[in-house]
């Protein structure tokens, strides 16, 4: 079995290396991939959309449909993860661990005991004992706002520098995942609940499709943002760049929420009680 697999893989690799002789050499400006539609995109981006970042304009304008359904794929993956893993019957662990904050003593309270309320004095910790890591938590508390501002910058400045909805959304989601790792899953869910993340997943896709629909209501094609010129009060070329920004915000929201949903469900195997 192993030999057959190695032979198969080797045969495929040899075939591909043989075929690679027909490929264009590295960095060839006249390669087939760079000679049909791509010169049009490069030369006409500024006059069509007034967006200097060609990647953004191709992503959200020329190939808007493609990106919309990529967003739908991400949304579907998040929803599928919830459906596969989420356990709604909460099974509370029999013994809980609490940390008395002023002294740092860990209390193990068995079933039937009286659990203290989450207050300034006592804090519930995961059943795999975790040390009281004040350096980690303070560092994360200081660094997370800057990560989030950077994420918003990446989304908003995607027209003029590398960036956009996908990248910014992933950075924003990573900041919330960092919070959940540094503190614990419960305090992350307390700040950004399950309902909110699921709502943002759907909202992102809705913003994208909604912008397309508004264009259609104004008599243009679906996702032809020049129709927004009348609403925004700008000329038709700048309207395209504003439309791209709206769409990118939708993508960013959807991607951020899906990353958070995936982490919540995978880290706690759908129980949403204690994570990594």
């Amino acid at each position, binding site marked *: 079995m192993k030999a057959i697999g190695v032979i*198969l893989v080797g045969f495929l690799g040899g075939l591909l290396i043989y075929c*690679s002789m027909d490929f264009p050499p590295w*960095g060839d400006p006249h390669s087939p991939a760079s000679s049909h539609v*791509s010169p049009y995109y*490069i*030369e006409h981006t500024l006059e069509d959309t007034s967006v200097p970042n060609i*990647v953004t304009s191709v992503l959200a304008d020329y190939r808007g449909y493609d990106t919309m359904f990529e967003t739908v*794929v991400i949304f579907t*993956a998040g929803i599928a993860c919830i459906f596969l893993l989420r356990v709604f019957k909460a099974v509370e662990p029999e013994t809980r661990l609490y940390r008395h904050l002023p002294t740092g003593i860990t209390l193990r309270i068995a079933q039937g005991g009286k659990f203290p309320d989450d207050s300034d004095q006592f804090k519930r910790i995961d059943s795999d004992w975790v040390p009281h890591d004040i350096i980690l938590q303070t560092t994360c508390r200081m660094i997370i706002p800057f990560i989030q501002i950077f994420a918003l910058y990446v989304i908003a400045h995607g027209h003029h520098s590398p960036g956009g909805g*996908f990248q910014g959304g992933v950075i924003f989601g990573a900041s919330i995942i960092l919070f959940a790792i540094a503190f614990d899953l419960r305090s992350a869910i307390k700040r950004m609940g399950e309902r909110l993340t699921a709502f943002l997943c759907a909202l992102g896709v809705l913003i994208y499709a909604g912008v397309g629909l508004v264009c259609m209501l104004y008599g243009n094609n679906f996702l032809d943002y020049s129709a927004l010129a009348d609403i925004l009060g700008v000329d038709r070329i700048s309207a395209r760049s504003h439309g791209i920004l709206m769409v990118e915000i939708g993508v960013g929201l959807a991607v951020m929420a899906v990353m958070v949903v995936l982490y919540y469900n995978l880290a706690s195997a759908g129980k949403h009680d204690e994570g990594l």
Partner: protein
Amino acid sequence: MDELLTILISRINYWVYIILMMVGMYGIIIKKNLMKKIIGMSILQTSVILFYVSIGAKKNATIPIIEHGHDTGHAAVQATHYINPLPHVLMLTAIVVAVATLGVALALAIKIYKQYNTLEEDELIEILKEKEF
């Protein structure tokens, strides 16, 4: 010898991706553990992404952001001065979609482990055979 060297230099990027792809395929076909299969799948995806990105490269070209500013006029933009943006667009979405689908694959693996207490393929097949009879 010189010809061989020029071929090597101009094609070596493709060969790296082909080797990465072979590593990924090997993982998917031969490894018995489902986690290792998922890792193999990710390596295969990465090789395809790298392949696409390398297609977009052009010699003596810069990143696909047109030079702009308030004082510069609208000089004609030449396609040979900027690398091909199209593979970047496609791979930008593909990377994020790969992460999302990887999440679904991991969710399925967690589900399988909960149900059968194993992720080894041969053990899973045995358990499923026993169930049938």
